[in-house]
């Protein structure tokens, strides 16, 4: 689904000219341009946007958990072009038991920590990432806190009365 305003946007026009298969949607809502691509084309799209449209920096990478919908994870890349003073949101959806997709660290070195954060808090694996380890949570932490099925508190500790006596 490509809406009218987005279809007239130069970035979208160029992307459609380059390849017909990668854009699954493009829309401008609240003055913000979003393009949706398939998960296996993300690196390709990012490299194209960086090279052809001078999106020199990735502002942030994050995910949204739409549990229980499937595919449950939306990966969101916010790109910024200093040269054109322009921003774009690239979105893709992954789901399943062990969600994974290709890392964009080969396009922007700055994607490194953001992808580690998504890996840490959502449990989405990035292939070909140079150092995919937990970044905010302790290394031995179980689970991924920002998933919707992760409770907000009290999941790990059972407070039981000591055997043979009352807890006083």
């Amino acid at each position, binding site marked *: 689904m490509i809406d009218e305003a987005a279809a007239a946007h130069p970035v979208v026009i160029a992307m459609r000219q380059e390849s017909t298969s990668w854009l699954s949607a493009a829309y401008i809502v609240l003055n*913000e341009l979003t393009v949706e691509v398939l998960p296996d084309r993300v690196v390709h799209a990012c490299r194209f946007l960086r090279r052809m449209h001078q999106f020199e920096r990735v*502002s*942030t990478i994050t995910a*949204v958990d739409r549990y229980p919908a499937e595919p449950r994870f939306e990966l969101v890349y*916010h790109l910024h072009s200093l040269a054109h003073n322009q921003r774009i*949101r690239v979105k893709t959806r992954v789901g399943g038991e062990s969600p994974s997709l290709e890392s964009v660290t080969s396009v922007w070195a700055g994607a490194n920590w953001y992808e580690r954060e998504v890996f840490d808090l959502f449990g989405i694996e990035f292939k070909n990432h140079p150092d995919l380890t937990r970044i*905010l*949570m302790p290394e031995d932490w179980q689970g991924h*806190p920002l998933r919707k099925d992760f409770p907000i508190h009290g999941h790990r500790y059972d407070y039981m009365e000591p055997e043979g006596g009352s807890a006083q």
Partner: protein
Amino acid sequence: MSEVPTLEAPVVADLRQVLEAPPETRPRTMVLNMGPQHPSTHGVLRIVLELDGEHVVHARPDIGFLHTGIEKQCENLTYQQAVTLTDRVDYLANMSNNLCYVLAVEKLLQLEVPPRAEWMRVMLVELTRLNSHLVWLGTHAMDVGAMTMFFYCMREREDLLRIFEMFSGQRMMTSYIRIGGLALDAPRGWEQAVGRFMQTFPSRVDEYEDLLKKNPIWMNRIIGVGELDVAELVDLGVTGPMLRAAGIKTDARKDAPYSGYEKFDFEVPTFTENDVYARYRVRIEEMRESIKIINQARAGMPGGAFQADAPKVVLPEREKMKTQMEALIYHFKIVTEGFRVPAGEVYQVIESPRGELGYYVVSDGTSKPLRVHMRTPSFGNLQALARLIQGKLIADVIAILGSMDFVLGDVDR
């Protein structure tokens, strides 16, 4: 008893092994653990430094000690309640975080706030910038060897915190900027309080510069230190004063004006030296520009309402609540279940004292956000740390850390 290992034997053997080995096979590097409680790391940052003599071969920052799950908590609070959490993200620039979050939600709600609220926000956010830069200047100078600066900066910061207390009742966790306007109207006598501060502050900035310019320790330790290629800085996600000290004129207040910044006359200071000294000068000049903005805001402060006319979002006045049934119903609804925000997503970017601050707010149409992601400037800037200190002297590490001006609460959220 024989289970207890004796320390001496293996250690001596190891040492002898090292000493007897030919020099070229001896390990040259040692690993030094800096932090997580080192005073110059400005919080709980741990850096694992691999050193070859005095030089850093490799550095690995270890973060997350202050991670409190603020993003997760936001998903379990109503939109207005989540404002209080944004204070705790960057505790030296509370108002900037309040403002960014509030602007994002207001964009989703398509809510217009009255001019008085906008101007008051701009003034307070600029005062916050001064507050943040003062803490940075004081601690940075103290790290590098100019002790006096710390006391002067804290003296001025105290005045600022008093002003914040006057407005919001809180010195640090202000939560004064709310969805739909401000929490309260400006207090009686705010003009005099801000005016008194603005009368003395410009000369104080000159004083800081004089003090530091003639301090040879300070000058020698920061000039020509901490350079990195501009393209690499951009690639690593560095923003704000660090990027402006590298000659890139980028500032969200000019590039994508918010909250009425387009009505104010100010410059974006840039330098091209790209070292610690240039970063210091950018921030000093920014203080001067902030003074200009605050003075314009004071002079032209519009009257009228300080909250939007949106009964479903903004709490009614106390008096109306007691006399009008509708107001009472709205009050009850807002307090018990919050207000619903239309489904959608917004990425709002503002210029915080540290750089590009972005809030990505996703709504699913309920009264609680589906996702609040904070793109904090400190996190992006800190990513460049390993590259900035690679190959540098360990004494320079302290100066470079200070020049990056990160807040660990902002990094770990």
